[in-house]
């Protein structure tokens, strides 16, 4: 694989076709679990793992699967991977497992996983597919992390609360109290806050895109020549 290809895949996953902001897939965990940064990042990473593995696994076998059972076989593969992850978490990260709850098995039906399997892995070689799965997963994780962080700060005034669930008791002191003595704006950590937060993030992305576009358009106008003339 060429470097440019890899770059393109990551640019796609992280920005251009970001699942959370652009494709609007995988929304449920994105919205439900993003009420704290730690939850958000943990689920994001679990999803990334599953996506990378499933895309990588589906790519080599795709040509042997007849069309009519394509989807059942794909979800079967995904489900196996998810269940494996679920059991590992259950055994070794129990606290997190309880918090993420039903959303771990629901990675199976996280639309973005199957969507990538269908639209990318079923057309590309294994390595690229695995990378694409990973990039998409990371894109989702990034949005999750931002959304989780913002919601946590506004909603509770803290950051990384519950980190001990993921990394063990000793990390309890890593929790940051961004705003001490804060009342807590509960809306932010309730479902409405999730929707509104994501809406604002999407708008923010639109804004950055628009600005980038405007810059591109105005470039020819601001050539050095003009600048010099203006100075002279």
């Amino acid at each position: 694989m060429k470097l440019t290809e890899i770059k393109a895949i990551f640019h796609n996953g992280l920005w251009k076709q970001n699942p959370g902001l652009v494709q609007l897939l995988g929304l449920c965990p994105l919205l439900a679990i993003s009420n704290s940064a730690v939850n958000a990042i943990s689920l994001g990473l679990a999803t990334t793992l599953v996506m990378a593995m499933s895309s990588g696994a589906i790519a080599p076998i795709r040509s042997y699967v007849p069309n009519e059972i394509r989807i059942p076989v794909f979800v079967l593969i995904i489900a196996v991977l998810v269940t494996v992850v679920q059991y590992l978490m259950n055994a070794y990260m129990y606290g997190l497992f309880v918090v993420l709850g039903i959303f771990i098995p629901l990675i199976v039906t996280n639309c973005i996983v199957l969507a990538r399997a269908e639209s990318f892995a079923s057309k590309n070689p294994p390595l690229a597919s695995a990378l694409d799965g990973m990039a998409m997963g990371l894109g989702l994780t990034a949005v999750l992390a931002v959304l989780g962080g913002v919601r946590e700060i506004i909603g509770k005034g803290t950051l990384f609360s519950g980190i001990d669930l993921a990394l063990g008791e000793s990390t309890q002191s890593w929790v940051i109290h961004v705003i001490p003595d804060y009342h807590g704006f509960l809306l932010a950590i309730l479902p409405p806050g999730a929707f509104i937060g994501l809406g604002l993030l999407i708008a923010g992305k639109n804004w950055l895109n628009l600005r980038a576009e405007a810059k591109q358009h105005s470039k020819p106008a601001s050539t050095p020549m003009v600048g010099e003339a203006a100075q002279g």
Partner: protein
Amino acid sequence: MTDYLLIIIGTVFVNNIVMVKILGLCPFMGVSRKLETSLGMGAATTFVLTLSSGASYLISHYLLGPDLAYLTTLSFIVAIAGIVQFTEMVIKKTSPDLYQVLGIYLPLITTNCAVLGIPLLNVQANHNFIESLLFGFGGAVGFTMAMVLFAGMRERMEGADTPAIFKGTAIAMITAGLMSLAFMGFAGLVK
């Protein structure tokens, strides 16, 4: 009887699957641009969800039992995928119009989290067969209702002077947020 009624009210309004439980959002956002489309998608989902609730009850009680509980997710999702695929083929044949409208979203019912989420919640809550069916049906009706109402709002918002960066999905997302805020008003109606 009232219990069953309460399950329906509970799943449709109080614990609306989209607005409160936050499941099934991708189709909720994706297929709600047009009223007709959302009605069609709602109908298809209701059918699949009710069916898969029943099927998953049978699977978990008669096929798996407590010993094989670790196969729950796997067996559910395989059954669901099968049901969806079957539905898709039937609709494609019998109603090309509906098929065209639902487009890429029909196969994606498989990945509507609600379709797996509800059977899993059924298992968690230890529902009996009828309760499972009602829970699935109520959840799907709630999903359809939320999506149809949302589609109505989105259609109206098309004419609004929305700021450019909010046009489209951003404002739709915020609307969904305010809808879910309103749905919090149902809190406590069914305990």
